């Protein structure tokens, strides 16, 4: 579904990605694990069209994304749950959710999906008229996920959804990620520093270090890999 080939991305003259390749197949959860500054967010933002690549190719359902503007990429079915949640604090919860469906025209289906999102996250319905900025971190993360779902994406990109959340909330978020994939068949590219949790829900994974993929494999293989155990699982 998504193929990234030899992607090179620079900030000015400094390379952030030095030719990474990865693939996400339909109905998979694939995780990209790496430490701070490894280039995870850069990878997602380049896929989403917020950052232009220096070279290499990004293909989504065999279509080259490289020079498409971000809104065209959303239209093709790729939604991002950005790092730090990226909710609009000055808008209400329901306004945020509606923005997720910004490009859709099917009004009645949008309202149906809104109900569906409220079913997954009942907390959001209780707070629908509240400003998003007044939500707790966990609720904001739920809002960010719900908002991405409102686009009915074919592929969801999630940037460190566990960041800064209490363990119990992290569990909840990961339960939902798994649910979305299993029950809805949503394809997910998941970025995490929390390798343990990420590998527990993913089918496959990649490890990125200073702009390069150093290991890849199935979740089982990665969990068994000695270097990964040491560096990312703290074992």
């Amino acid at each position, binding site marked *: 579904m998504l193929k990234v080939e030899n992607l090179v991305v620079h900030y000015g003259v400094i390379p952030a990605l030095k030719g990474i390749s990865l693939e996400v197949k339909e109905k998979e959860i694939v995780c990209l694990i790496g430490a701070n500054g490894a280039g995870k967010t850069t990878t997602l*933002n380049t896929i*989403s*069209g*917020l950052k232009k690549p220096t070279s290499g190719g990004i293909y989504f359902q065999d279509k080259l994304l490289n020079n498409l*503007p*971000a*809104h065209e990429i*959303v*239209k093709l079915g790729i*939604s*991002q749950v*950005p790092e*730090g949640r*990226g909710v*609009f*604090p*000055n*808008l209400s919860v329901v*306004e945020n959710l*509606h*923005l*997720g469906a*910004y*490009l859709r025209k099917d009004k009645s289906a949008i309202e149906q999906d809104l109900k569906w999102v409220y079913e997954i996250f009942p907390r959001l319905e209780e707070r629908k008229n509240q400003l998003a*900025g007044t939500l707790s971190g966990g609720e904001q993360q739920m809002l960010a996920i719900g*908002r991405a779902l409102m*686009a009915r994406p074919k592929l969801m990109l999630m940037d460190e959804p566990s960041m*800064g959340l209490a363990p119990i909330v992290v569990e909840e978020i990961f339960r939902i990620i798994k649910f979305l994939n299993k029950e809805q068949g949503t394809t997910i590219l998941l970025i995490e520093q929390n390798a343990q949790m990420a590998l527990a829900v993913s089918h496959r994974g990649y490890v990125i270090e200073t702009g390069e993929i150093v290991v890849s494999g199935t979740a089982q293989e990665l969990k068994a890999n000695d270097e990964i155990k040491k560096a990312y699982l703290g074992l």
Partner: protein
Amino acid sequence: MFTQQIINGLTMGSIYALIALGYTMVYGILRIVNFAHGDIFMMGTFFGLLLTQKFRFPFPLALILAAIFTALLGMLVERVAYRALRLSDRLVLLISALGVSIFLSNFAQLVWGTETHPFPSGLSVKSFQVGTVTLSNIQVYILILSCLLMIALHVFVHKTKMGVAMRATSHSINNARLMGINTDSIISMTFAVGSILAAVAGILVGIYYDAVYPTMGYTAGLKAFTAAVLGGIGNIPGAMLGGVVLGVVESLGAAYISSGYRDAFAFGIMIIVLIFRPSGLLGKKQQEKV
């Protein structure tokens, strides 16, 4: 006399508010002060003058057409002077803005000369007495029209899909793009809306003072910018309030203390407010989310 000054202050205040909205909306989205906005206001006034005088359009039609042309001009300014520089240093944008401002006022001087033109609107000026207060019909038009425009703007920003997209873009361009919002067109539209308000303000004030001249954008622009800062730059209700407060303070100061210091009152009130509320009357403290 007091009520009279309040009414006069409200009249000018709503003009300032209309112009201030353009400064504040553009600042809210791009975090830049569009120094060319005063000149866009001036061009809008000339468009109105041209359409009513040269082309003999009836006033309401001329007003609408002038607003449309000014919107296009505002969009052009954004396209030419700001878009490519959006990621550059603020100083570069400032220089570009000043360049546009100088260009527009010189352009106006070249085309229409440096003199002051009267603005015969075709509306016959009538004054009427309400108690001790004298009101002209022009004042009433200014008050009603600016009220209507501000209500329309409020509805647009809060109740329409585009308005919500605009508020989202003003919070974060990148996150807005991730929603599928074409932020370039939202930014363009913001310039268009601000320019429409400026054009209407310009035409109204042109008629009110029966005067149109190429440098009229400087003082009005500066006052309106002051109003925007006073209300909290980036904040839409703030710009409305700031404009009205500025107009009233200026008018009262001029009437009761000295009319020679009219401008000093305007800037004085801004300095005083900023000492006590650095983010302006309605501005929120800039809070960074971690």
